[in-house]
């Protein structure tokens, strides 16, 4: 499958003459050279792909370059070097007029602090992207009302942003970004400014919308729990570099380095890991119980069954073939030791 949006070897440097500097160092300067010449690297040599219908979460601490990277993807920031491919077309070579058209029809973005226009009602805010395209008033308000209903703000279309709570304001931000039915959806820490309870609710809401809409999503967060909850795949960034890209399970079981391992240490693995990652190969003549679990089951969901059984359980794959066994001891080790001890 071809990526919907991808970037290759993207750099963003700040300083006197970033292009010249990169060229002089063959497009890949060392950390020492960057510091010595007084440049500030925001994104270094980043490559990633987002496939149609996928949620890619870009995760990192503040200052790790995740916001800059996502702005390079939408060309809100001009990358110093590299390519950004949108449907296979290099976005960086697209002329300004055409870029506006792409943004008007194919991209949507949600912002951390909502970025609503304070002088416009909810309806006018949501209809804003349609308005700048020149869609006539009746059509755009009709469309805006539909989306307002979709995000659960029905009946509040005539409120002003100041009259809404933070969570409601972000619903407006989400509705606005969806108004033009974009293919690609960028979300820049959309829930970070909200209270924990509201944040959780909004995450559920987001997942609900995504099962209906199947957008291609680049989602930024600094919250690893949020990343795990939402992501199909996660890209972890540190000091401008993408350190690792993988499914949540891959990150937990095989962290690329200590930095990634630090994030995954406190994760509730039983909710994340599948039986496949704790099962062992079946030994000949080993006594097993009658029960069977599937290798795609989450450990948390079948732990009671395994721990309650004296004998190990058989593990089956999707076509009901037995591919391994899982013992009480393995599960208890995983649950309580919290060591990355995952054979199988």
């Amino acid at each position, binding site marked *: 499958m071809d990526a919907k949006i991808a970037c290759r070897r993207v750099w963003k440097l700040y300083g006197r003459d970033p292009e010249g500097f990169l060229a002089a160092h063959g497009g890949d300067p060392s950390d020492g050279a960057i510091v010595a010449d007084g440049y500030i690297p925001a994104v270094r040599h980043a490559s990633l792909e987002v496939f149609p219908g996928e949620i890619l979460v870009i995760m990192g601490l503040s200052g790790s370059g995740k916001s800059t990277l996502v702005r390079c993807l939408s060309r809100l920031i001009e990358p110093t070097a590299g390519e950004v491919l949108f449907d296979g077309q290099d976005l960086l070579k697209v002329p300004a007029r055409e870029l506006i058209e792409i*943004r008007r029809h194919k991209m949507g973005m949600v912002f951390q602090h909502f970025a609503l*226009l304070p002088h416009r009602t909810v309806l006018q805010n949501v209809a804003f992207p349609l308005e700048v395209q020149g869609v006539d008033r009746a059509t755009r308000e009709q469309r805006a009302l539909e989306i307002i209903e979709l995000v659960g703000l029905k009946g509040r279309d005539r409120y002003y942003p*100041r009259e809404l709570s933070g969570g409601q304001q972000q619903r407006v931000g989400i509705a606005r970004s969806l108004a033009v039915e974009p293919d690609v959806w960028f979300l820049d820490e959309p829930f970070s400014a909200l209270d924990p309870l509201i944040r959780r609710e909004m995450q559920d809401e987001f997942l609900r919308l995504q099962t209906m809409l199947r957008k291609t999503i680049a989602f930024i967060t600094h919250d690893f729990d949020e990343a795990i909850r939402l992501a199909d795949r996660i890209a972890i960034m540190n000091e401008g570099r993408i350190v690792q890209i993988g499914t949540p399970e891959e990150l937990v079981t095989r962290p690329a380095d200590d930095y990634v391992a630090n994030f995954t240490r406190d994760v509730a693995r039983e909710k994340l890991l599948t039986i496949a990652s704790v099962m062992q190969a079946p030994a000949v003549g080993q006594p097993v119980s009658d029960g069977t679990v599937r290798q795609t089951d989450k450990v948390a969901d079948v732990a009671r069954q395994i721990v309650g059984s004296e004998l190990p359980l058989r593990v089956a794959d999707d076509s009901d073939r037995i591919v391994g066994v899982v013992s009480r001891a393995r599960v208890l080790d995983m649950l309580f030791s919290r060591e990355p001890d995952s054979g199988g």
Partner: protein
Amino acid sequence: MAESAVPNGELALRRWVAGTGQSGLRVALFLVAPSVLVLALGPFLPDWLRIVPQEWSAPFVGWINAAVEILRREEIFGLFTFRDLTRAIANLIDYPLDFVEAILVAGFSESVPGLPWIAVTGLAIVLGWYLQGRQLGVIAGICFAYMAIFGKWELSMVTLSVVLVAAPIAGAIGVALGIAAYKRRWFETVLWPILNVMQALPHFSYMIPVAIFIGIGHKAGTIATIIFAFPVMARLTLLGLKGVSPEVREAGTMAGCTKRQMLWKVELPAARPTLMVGVNQVIMLCLAMVVLASFVGAKGLGHDLLNRLRSLWIGQALEIGVVIVFMAIILDRLSQAWARKEPEHMREGPFHVRHPFLTAGAAVVVVSYVMAAFVPALQLWPKSLSITTAPLWDALIDDIIVYAFDYLELIKDTLLVHVLIPMRDLYLMLPWSALLVFAVTLGWYYGGWQVAGIQALFALYLAFAGFWERTLITAYMVSFAVIVCVIIGSIVGIWAAAGPRRTKVVELILDTFQTFPSFIYLIPAIMLFSVNDFAAIMAIVIYATIPTTRLTIFGLRMVPHDIVEAAITSGCTPRQVLWKVRMPLAFPAIMLGINQTIMYALFMVVIAAFIGTTDLGQEIFRSKADNNAGKSLVVGLCIAFMGLMADQLINAWARERKKLLGLE
């Protein structure tokens, strides 16, 4: 400034100066010693290091006058001169001016009279009600009714019409310049310093060039008003646009806005709060200036006030002053209410339900025309029924003079003999070289070489402009006034910051006082001390105390609450909390207040020249009398540069200090 950008030697020097331990003493020694040295050497210095000889002075005045002469006489545009051009543009202003004046009071012809006074008053009530609520409507009504009943209706409406014409034009020019500066980086770099100087130039410096290129009269006054008021709008437009959150701008980009859509649909609406602060200030500056513009022939309240003051008819002057004050209060309140007004939901229904205030306004106009047709007193309040309080005031002043004259004279004479005259003599000994050394060391220490360089330029200009002695006299008056202002201001400020109720009361008074055109402050000074240096200083003090007081309160109240609580739990007495915790933290804010006080004082010193002083203000006055544009501009720049020197030093200091305290 970034220390890493400073060369090593300089860094070491700076460290040594700042030192550790006894740093205060070292700083004082290092910064002040050179200037004291030059000062002490004063008598032994060669004359040219003390006062630049007249033949060395740069002939700025001559240059400017020569340039003015060329613009006046030479037909640089082929068929006509620059002055012809400016006059032609000026003539355009007559149309809106006549139109608004005709509506408000003069009328279009015998058969089509202007609005009756009850109509204007009614409209003011509707407007106040619409913008804020019933209370503001009532205040607006009282203010306008007062103008009519006290027989000042026509004068007031003439003044109001100038404001109503000048403010939108000045606002539009300012917004256009602000947008241009926002769009083009090079234009911002050019515009910003010009705005700084323009805002530091005293009112009168604008008048003489205007008088030369446009002539004396009502429209010249209006144009001077526009020129005086637009810089603040340009500055606030630029600040507002720059202050739009980057996220909001990105949201616009992602929605697919073109540059034009971005500006008009996203950036300008998002900058509305700052723009509205600008609108309020433009209106208030217009009013302040139109009152003063009577010096170049603007009609209205200012004109009459000027005449009364010249003839020392204090009672009548005071009465006009009160009207101006009312006008200031109501314009300020209305424009602030407009700035605060949030967009509102429209009700469903027929026109008069959806637009109740528009309907009410129209009804007011129709009803008042009909009523005025039958009762002429509702068209224009008859002179015979006008109330005047002037005799009362005159009697009061006579009483004050009879009973308090000796005391007032005693205060005045004591201060003059023991403080003011010695201080003045001391200032007059100051060599320009000492000022140069002083300004450059301070500038370098707090702001680096760039600030030091600009300070040097300003100081050299003052020395070589040819008005050194006058500059010193101005400096003496201003610094004495500023010292008094700071003493009064900080005492009142500390008192007012002690409790929320006190703060509220004092801030209300300050807000009100601040809206008064500066000219007004001459009235009480003249009333009590007649016409002399001392009265001028009193006028400055009354006017310039406001910012110090305001920022003392602000600084003290801004001290983070947990720091105060920490101090109290550490066992500080209330006095210790104030002096050991709150005052040090509030000090940067207070310094910025003092900075503004200096600016206010410099402005007022020029206006006070009207009552006979011997400083730069007096020079501007004289240059006005003989239409010497060059001189008025050169002297105006002297005053502006004095202000800017202080401004730059204090700001550099406050930045440093705030960074140190982590208040940024």
